[in-house]
C-alpha cells in the first residue's frame, strides 16, 4: 500500500515537509495568540459558570448544566490549552501565561513528568516497540506485534476502566511501575518517580473533593459529585481522542533496528504511518486539542495547533504524491477500529506477519 521510497525520494519528501513547516513559522503571529487566548477565555467563563451553578443551585437542571460546563472547561484546559502550551507551541510569544516550561495543567499528572515522557520519549521514539511506552501503555496489547500474555484476556475491561480513570493513568505512566515489577527498575527509583505524582494527585483530589465542596457549605455533596462527573467526562473524552490517534488498524509499529540512522525524511514518514486523524468540524478539533490532527501534530509538535487543519490538506497531498497512506476517518469509524484492535488482540494471534509492511 505504501510505495517504497528511494533514499533520494525520502530526502525530497522531507524537504517538502520542512518547507511547509518554515512557511507556517514565518506566518506565526497575532492570529495564533488570539486563538489560544479566546480558548482560554471560553474555558475560564465555562469554569466560572460551572462552579457557580453547582455551588448555588439546588435543582437537577443547574446540576447537569454546571457539571457539563465544568467538564467542558476541563476538556479545553487539558486538551487545547495544556497539552499544546506544554509542547512549547506558544513559547515564541514570550507571554509567561503561555510558557510551556512553567505551565501546569488541571489534572493528576505532574506537568514536568509529562513533559519528559511525552515530549521527549513519545514524540521522539513514536511507535517504536520497546522505546515508546505509549504503545498500549505497557499493559494493553494494541497490535499483534506485541507479545501476548494471558493477562491480555481481560484487556477489554481494563481499557474501559482506564477510560474512566484516564488522568490517573497518564499520571501513573511516569512511574514505570511495570519495569519495577519486571525487576528492571529499583524500588528507590520508583519512589522518586512516584512522589511528584502522588503530590500532584493528592492536591487535585483535595481541590475537587474537599476545598470546593467545603466552600459550598450545605451544597458540598452536590459540588463533589459535580466535580466527579466533570473529571469523568474529561477522562473518557481524552481517552477516546488519544486512543484514536495511535491505535486504529493500519497504524504501523516499528522495531528499533529499523530506525538506525534514520534521516529526517524517514522520521517524518514514521510519524505519518504511526498516527491517525479523525475527521470533524472546527469545534470538534478544538475540543480534541487538535489531536484529531494527530498526523500533523506528530510531524510538527511545536507549531500552534490551530494551524493543523490548515496544513492538513497539503500534508495529505504530499503523501499522495509520494504514494504514502494517510490514515483518517470519522470519529465513529476510528473508535470502532480501536475497539476491534483491543478485542482482537486480547487473544493470542496466529503467527501472522506484521500487517502493514
Amino acid at each position, binding site marked *: 500500500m505504501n510505495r517504497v521510497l528511494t533514499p533520494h525520494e525520502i530526502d525530497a519528501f522531507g524537504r517538502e515537509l520542512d518547507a511547509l513547516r518554515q512557511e507556517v513559522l514565518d506566518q506565526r*503571529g497575532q492570529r495564533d495568540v488570539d486563538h489560544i487566548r479566546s480558548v482560554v477565555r471560553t474555558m*475560564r467563563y465555562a469554569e466560572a459558570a460551572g462552579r457557580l451553578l453547582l455551588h448555588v443551585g439546588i435543582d437537577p437542571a443547574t446540576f447537569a448544566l454546571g457539571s457539563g460546563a465544568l467538564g467542558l472547561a476541563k476538556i479545553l484546559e487539558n486538551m487545547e490549552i495544556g497539552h499544546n502550551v506544554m509542547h512549547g507551541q506558544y513559547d515564541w510569544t*514570550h507571554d509567561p*501565561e503561555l510558557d510551556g516550561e512553567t505551565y501546569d495543567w488541571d489534572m493528576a499528572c505532574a506537568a514536568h513528568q509529562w513533559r519528559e515522557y511525552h515530549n521527549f520519549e513519545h514524540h521522539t521514539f513514536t511507535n517504536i516497540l520497546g522505546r515508546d511506552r505509549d504503545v498500549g501503555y505497557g499493559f494493553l496489547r494494541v497490535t499483534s506485534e506485541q507479545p501476548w500474555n494471558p493477562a491480555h484476556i481481560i484487556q477489554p475491561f481494563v481499557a474501559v476502566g482506564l477510560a474512566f480513570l484516564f488522568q490517573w493513568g497518564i499520571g501513573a505512566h511516569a512511574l514505570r511501575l511495570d519495569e519495577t515489577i519486571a525487576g528492571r527498575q529499583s524500588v528507590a527509583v520508583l519512589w522518586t518517580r512516584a512522589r511528584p505524582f502522588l503530590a500532584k494527585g493528592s492536591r487535585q483530589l483535595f481541590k475537587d473533593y474537599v476545598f470546593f465542596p467545603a466552600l459550598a457549605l450545605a451544597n458540598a455533596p452536590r459540588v463533589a459529585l459535580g466535580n466527579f462527573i466533570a473529571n469523568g467526562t474529561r477522562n473518557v473524552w481524552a481517552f477516546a481522542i488519544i486512543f484514536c490517534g495511535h491505535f486504529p488498524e493500519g497504524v504501523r509499529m516499528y522495531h528499533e533496528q529499523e530506525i538506525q540512522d534514520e534521516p529526517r525524511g524517514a522520521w517524518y514518514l514514521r510519524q505519518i504511518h504511526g498516527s491517525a486523524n479523525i475527521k470533524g468540524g472546527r469545534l470538534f478539533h478544538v475540543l480534541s486539542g487538535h489531536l484529531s490532527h494527530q498526523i500533523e501534530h506528530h510531524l510538527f509538535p511545536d507549531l500552534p495547533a490551530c494551524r493543523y487543519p490548515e496544513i492538513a490538506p497539503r500534508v495529505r497531498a504530499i503523501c499522495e504524491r509520494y504514494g504514502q497512506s494517510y490514515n483518517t476517518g470519522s470519529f465513529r469509524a476510528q473508535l470502532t477500529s480501536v475497539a476491534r484492535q483491543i478485542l482482537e488482540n486480547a487473544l493470542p494471534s496466529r503467527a501472522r506477519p506484521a500487517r502493514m509492511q
Partner: protein
Amino acid sequence: MNTLATSAPRVARTASFALRAAQRVSRALLLDRSFRFWVDELAPVASRAELRACVLSVADVTHDVKTFVLAPRVWPGHLPGQWVPVEIEVDGIRLRRCYSISSPPNDPHVELTVKRVPGGRVSNWMHTHLHAGDFVRLGAPSGDFVLPEATPAKLLLLSGGSGATPLIAILRDLAHRRALKDVTYLHAARSRRDVLFARELARLSSLHPGLRVVLHLDDESPRLDSTQLWVLVPDLAHRETFLCGPTGMMDAVAPAFLGFEGRLHHERFVVAKPAAAAPGAGALIHLGRSKRSITTTGRGTLLDELEQAGERLEYGCRMGICNTCRCAKRSGVVENVLTGAISNEPDDVIRLCVSVARSDLTLAL
C-alpha cells in the same frame, strides 16, 4: 491610643502572612492562573504578577516624537537619568525596549519620550497603537547615567535628538531641588522643529540665572564636533559632562574630552554593530539542546544571526545590559563587541546580543 499604635503593625504582619498563605494554597491548587486571568479580564493594571502602568496621556512633541505619561500601579522610585524597560506586544510577540525616564523623581507619574525610529518595531507600534487608557508592562528602573551623590559645581548636559530624555530628567530634578547653580544645557537637533522640550527649556532658563541653554541646529550651523563643542563651551575642561545622543554625534564630540575623559559620563541608546565580515566570517554554530546547526554570515551578533536562522531567543536590551540573553557557550571562541574581550574558555557564560563568533561554536541552546 497606645494599644492602637502597637497593634497596627501586628495587623499588617498578620495580613501579609495571611496573603502569603493564600498565595501558597492557590498555587498548590492551580487557582493562581485563574486568579490572574480574572485580574487581566477585569482590572489589568491591578496585576501583581507584573508591573503595569496605565497610559494617562499621549502628546505630540515634534513631528516624530511623542510623550507618554504613565501611571504605574506602584513605582519603586528612580534616579534622574535612569531608564525603564517597557514591554509591549507586536503581532503576538512581546518585545522589550529601554526608555529613559524624562520625569524627575518628585513627579507622581512616569513620563517617557519616544522618537519614531524608521522601521523600528516598538517605537512605531507605540506611536500608532498606544493610546490613553491602554496599559504597558514595565520592568524595574535602572541605569548608572546619574549625577554623583554630591552635585558637581559646574555641569554640562549635552544631548542630541532623543538623547535629551535622560538629561531633561536631570535638569528638572536640579530645578526642583534649586540646585541649578552653573549648568550648561547644550542640545543638538536637526532643525528648530526637532528640538525637544523647547518651551520648558526657555521657561527654566528665564527662571534660573544659573542655567545657560545652548541650541545647536544642524541646518543652521556646521555639524557639532569636538572643535564646535570647544567654541560653544569654552570652559569644557572644568565641567562634569553628561552626554547622550545618536552614535554619530557621540563619536564626533568624543575627542574634545581628550585628557579629562574621567569627567565624561555617557549613555548610549544604540550600540554600534560589528563591522561587516568580522575576522573569521561565517561560522558553524551548533545548538546542543535542540541539536540544530546553523551557519552564520559573520555580519551580525549571535543573537541577530540565530534569530535570522529562525530561533526564538530570550532577550531584553540587545546591548549587553540586562543579561536576559545570557547563554552558556560549551566550546569555541567569541568576541564581545563592546569590550573586544575574547572568550575561549569552555562553559563561559556569554551575552548573545553583544557577541560575535570567532570560531565554530557549541551553545547550550
